Structures are given as structure tokens and as C-alpha cells.
């Protein structure tokens, strides 16, 4: 027997709140299954199990804040589960993810209620998809939304249909209900049908509080723990002990923003206190990159197109392979090189704050794959659906503030990493080449690096490598 413990979900995490259990005693689990939701100061994270076995006692009830390393549940190793034993848990979709953006708990809890749908043939004992292009959770989501999977083309690895594909598919029963944007989002997150909600806003418009009331009604009727698993957002709020249960829903994002602000303040202060930063910048001619992108995007449907960020990210990762002294950690007064190149991607959240989900081994991914990961990660970061393994292990961070129109960003390193790469906006500028002046798309790439680990010459070599790599986009 061993213990499933509170994981460290980022270098700055000391403790976390066990928000929700997605498994119960007796459930078989496999390495990689999502078993719980843990809330850090920054986000709610889907946490995976790192062992296979059977869940024993749950040691910590939901809503409890515990330090990293605290045992949360017992895992018994008597025998390996032959396969998902219960059709109403979420194992089929969550095990053995080949880096595929499989969905999380959103639809999992209600799977039990939906066995008689055409999109979901009888529960498969093997747990594998009958429709090869989509996992069970994706198919369930499609069924919930009334989306025809056979009409979709998958953007996931190997053409798998991802949750994003389903979510972006036009819904044949898009509700024409008057509702506030917040209510719509809430309804989507909670799986509530807006057409069935009585609105109390202007002209009968559905407000967030109406959706919440409807959700609670549904919860009372269902009374099932499976249902609770489908409503992490609500659950999170209700069991937050510092917040009165009756607190208006609209206050929640503010609270999250506050704790995130504090977490960022703490980490960035530590960085500036401990890390002697040096900064370098260079402007790169992006004509070759733009031309290449235009050529390969032509004729592709929007879902398959690449954005410049994917190309820049790939170049940043490959350059780290050439200059490994910038890829890794500063620990115990020394540099520890990373064994892989795992790129943290700074993602700004709409309500404020930022997260840095990780693209593992980014240097090995084709631009298309990198693009798919990027889209999926950014979307899930913003929806609060990241997995534990996606929040840890970054060896280098890339920020792309150019998206907001600025030309250069001199970043603050995320300790214990030793470098941060920044890309500004791609802009057209006068540019001299071969003694001729022309107008070219250019991008300014910057490097903030830890002077304890490297000197400026190393940083300069890195930026030169990024430039060289971007001149041959077809080889990225």
C-alpha cells in the first residue's frame, strides 16, 4: 500500500486545498488517471495519480487545506485493475493519454445518466472508444451538446477529435435564450440547459444567480456524487470555508484574482530579490517565417492553420537545445541542466493574472503538434481545466506579450528557472538588407537570464540561434 499525496503543482506551491474527489474507496486507478481536483492559489488543477492500484481510504475530506506531501488517500496494490470496473467513473477517458487533450471532469460525472444516447453506444467494458476518432468523454460532451461527431474533423494527435473540436462545433440547438454572458458561461460549465432556466433579469433574461439556483435544484434532485463531480465550479465555491455559502457567485472570480495576485507577487518578488537578471534583445527579420506560414496555411481550414506564436515557440525550444546552459534550474548554489526542454507558456487570463502551463519536450514537436498543444493548453488554462502534469516541470519560459501589441518584453524569470524568452508583436518596419531598404515583418525577441548561471555571451548565442532557426522555418 502507498499513499497518494498532495502534489507540488509549481515551484511556488507550499500547500493546496483538496477541492474534490473524483474517485472513491474501491475504485481501480491507473497511473495518469485524474483522481482529484486541487486548488492552488492560482487555479483549480486536475491532479493525476502516479501509481496504479485500488483506492483505499480517503484520508482528507474535500475543502481541506494541507501542505504539499500530505497523504490524501491510500492506494492499495493487491492487483492491477483489469479495466475500468464501473461505467460511472471517469477512467475510460482519462487513462493512458498520449499527450492528447482529453477532457477532464466536465462531462465525466454525468456519463452515467447518458448511456442510452445514440452517440454513445452501450458502455464498453474495454473502456476504449468505439468511435476511433474520439474518446468517451469527448463523445459524451458531443452528445450533451447535440454535436454530430461524424461531421467533425479532429485536430488532436492522429486526427483525434478533441474536446475543443466539439466545443467549437456549431451546436444545432444553440439556445436563443436571453441571458447574460456570465450566465451562459456558468450554464455551460455546470451543464445546465439555459432554455430550462427561469430568468429574473431585465425582460426575463437569465442571470448567473438563476443558473446557480437551477443547478442547486438539479443537485438536490439528483443527489448523486457523480453529479457533484460534474460541477466543480459550484462545488469549489460551496465548500470554500472562508466564503459564506450564500455569497453571490459573481464575487468568486474576484477572490481567485486576489489569491493569484498574491501568488504572483510572492514569486516575482523572490525572483527579483534572488536572481541577478541580465537582459538582451535582438530584432529578427520574419519574412521567411511569414512566407512559410502563409504558404502552408493557404487552403487549410482555420482549425488547421498555424499562428506565428507556434513557430516562435518552436524556435525558442530548439535554440535551448543548442544553448543548454539556459535550460534548467538554479538549485543549491548551482545550475542543474534540464533533462528535457519543457517550455512554460505564459498565458494571461481575462480576469487578470497569469498561468504558465507547460509544453513538455517542445523541441521534439512538429509545429502542427505544438500549435495543437498551445491552443488546447491556453484554452484549458483560461477555463481552469489544467492537469497537474501540465503545471510542473518547465525548464524555460516563453512569453508572447506581442499579442497585446507591444514590441518588446523584458521579463522576470520564474524561479528556479534561469531564463525567460520574450517575443514582441510581429510588425512591419523599414529593414535594410544587402544594402537595400525595404519593408519587412520583424519581431523583437528578448532574453532575461540569470547571471549566476550564465554570462551575456551565452545569452547572445541563444538569441543568435533563434534568429538563425527562424530563417529556415521549413526545418523547424
Amino acid at each position, binding site marked *: 500500500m502507498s499513499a497518494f499525496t498532495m502534489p507540488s503543482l509549481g515551484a511556488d506551491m507550499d500547500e493546496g486545498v483538496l477541492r474534490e474527489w473524483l474517485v472513491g474507496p474501491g475504485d481501480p486507478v491507473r497511473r495518469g488517471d485524474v483522481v482529484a481536483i486541487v486548488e492552488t492559489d492560482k487555479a483549480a488543477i486536475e491532479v493525476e495519480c502516479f501509481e496504479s492500484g485500488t483506492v483505499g481510504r480517503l484520508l482528507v475530506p474535500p475543502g481541506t487545506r494541507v501542505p504539499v506531501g500530505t497523504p490524501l488517500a491510500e492506494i492499495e496494490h493487491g492487483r492491477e485493475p483489469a479495466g475500468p470496473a464501473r461505467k460511472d467513473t471517469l477512467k475510460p477517458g482519462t487513462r493512458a493519454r498520449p499527450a492528447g487533450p482529453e477532457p477532464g471532469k466536465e462531462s465525466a460525472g454525468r456519463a452515467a445518466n447518458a448511456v442510452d444516447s445514440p452517440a454513445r453506444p452501450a458502455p464498453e467494458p474495454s473502456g476504449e472508444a468505439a468511435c476511433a476518432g474520439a474518446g468517451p468523454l469527448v463523445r459524451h460532451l458531443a452528445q450533451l451538446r447535440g454535436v454530430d461527431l461524424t461531421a467533425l474533423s479532429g485536430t488532436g494527435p492522429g486526427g483525434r477529435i478533441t474536446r475543443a473540436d466539439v466545443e467549437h462545433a*456549431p451546436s444545432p440547438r444553440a439556445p436563443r435564450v436571453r441571458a447574460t454572458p*456570465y450566465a451562459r458561461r456558468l450554464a455551460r460549465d455546470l451543464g445546465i440547459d439555459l432554455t430550462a432556466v427561469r430568468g429574473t433579469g431585465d425582460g426575463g433574461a437569465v442571470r448567473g444567480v438563476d443558473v446557480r439556483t437551477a443547478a442547486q435544484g438539479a443537485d438536490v434532485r439528483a443527489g448523486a456524487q457523480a453529479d457533484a463531480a460534474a460541477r466543480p465550479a459550484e462545488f469549489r465555491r460551496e465548500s470554500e470555508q472562508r466564503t459564506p455559502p450564500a455569497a453571490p457567485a459573481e464575487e468568486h472570480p474576484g477572490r481567485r484574482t486576489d489569491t493569484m495576485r498574491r501568488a504572483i507577487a510572492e514569486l516575482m518578488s523572490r525572483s527579483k530579490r534572488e536572481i541577478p537578471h541580465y537582459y538582451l534583445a535582438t530584432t529578427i527579420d520574419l519574412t521567411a517565417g511569414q512566407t512559410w506560414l502563409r504558404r502552408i496555411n493557404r487552403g487549410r481550414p*482555420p*482549425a488547421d*492553420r498555424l499562428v506565428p506564436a507556434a513557430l516562435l515557440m518552436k524556435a525558442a525550444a530548439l535554440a535551448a537545445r543548442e544553448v543548454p546552459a539556459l535550460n534548467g534550474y538554479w538549485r543549491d548554489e548551482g545550475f542543474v541542466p534540464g533533462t528535457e526542454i519543457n517550455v512554460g507558456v505564459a498565458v494571461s487570463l481575462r*480576469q487578470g493574472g497569469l498561468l504558465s502551463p507547460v509544453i513538455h519536450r517542445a523541441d521534439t514537436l512538429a509545429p502542427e503538434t505544438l500549435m495543437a498543444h498551445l491552443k488546447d493548453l491556453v484554452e484549458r488554462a483560461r477555463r481552469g481545466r489544467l492537469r497537474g502534469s501540465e503545471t510542473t516541470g518547465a525548464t524555460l519560459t516563453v512569453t508572447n506579450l506581442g499579442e*497585446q501589441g507591444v514590441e518588446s518584453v523584458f521579463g522576470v524569470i520564474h524561479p528556479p528557472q534561469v531564463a525567460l524568452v520574450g517575443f514582441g508583436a510581429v510588425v512591419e518596419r523599414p529593414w535594410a538588407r544587402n544594402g537595400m531598404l525595404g519593408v519587412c515583418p520583424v519581431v523583437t525577441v528578448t532574453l532575461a537570464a540569470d547571471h549566476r548561471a550564465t554570462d551575456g555571451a551565452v545569452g547572445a548565442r541563444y538569441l543568435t540561434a533563434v534568429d538563425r532557426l527562424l530563417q529556415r522555418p521549413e526545418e523547424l
Partner: protein
Amino acid sequence: MKPLTDAEAASVVKESIAQIVPDADFTGVGPDDRFRDVLELDSLDFLSLVESLSERTGIRIDEEDYPELTTLADATRFLVGRSREATGTSPA
């Protein structure tokens, strides 16, 4: 297939944006404002918008057309124009 009316095109644009930015507050976005800046859509968001517009209307949108999707008024005009071209050239 009938060409889109201005009102239909405008609502498709707003619905598509709302799908990407669930909290989008259109009261702050004038017809000639650059909505991408006002609502802080990054390049991935914008690509999702193109994807959604294209799926909802069946209109093909190439990268060359992106500059047409800068303001709500431009985007509406673009979709209406394209849907007229499409219905004018195909017998359906």
C-alpha cells in the same frame, strides 16, 4: 441558401466572439472599434473566431481576409458580401 442579412451577420459575429470571450461586454465595443484590441483577443482567440465564423456561415475565410475582420462593422460587411457572392455563383 439565402445570403445573410446585415442583422444575421452581425449576430453571428457577436455570438462567435461571445463563444471565445464568454464575458465579452459589447457595450464597450463600437461598430468601428478594433474589437480584437478592446476585447484582448490574442492570435489563438482570433483563429478560433475565424473558425467559428466559417463553421456557422459556411463561408470560406482565408488569411488574406483577416484584415476585413477588424471591426464589428467590417466583419458584418465582409460576411454579407461573401454570402452574396456565394449564393450568386452557386445554384443552391
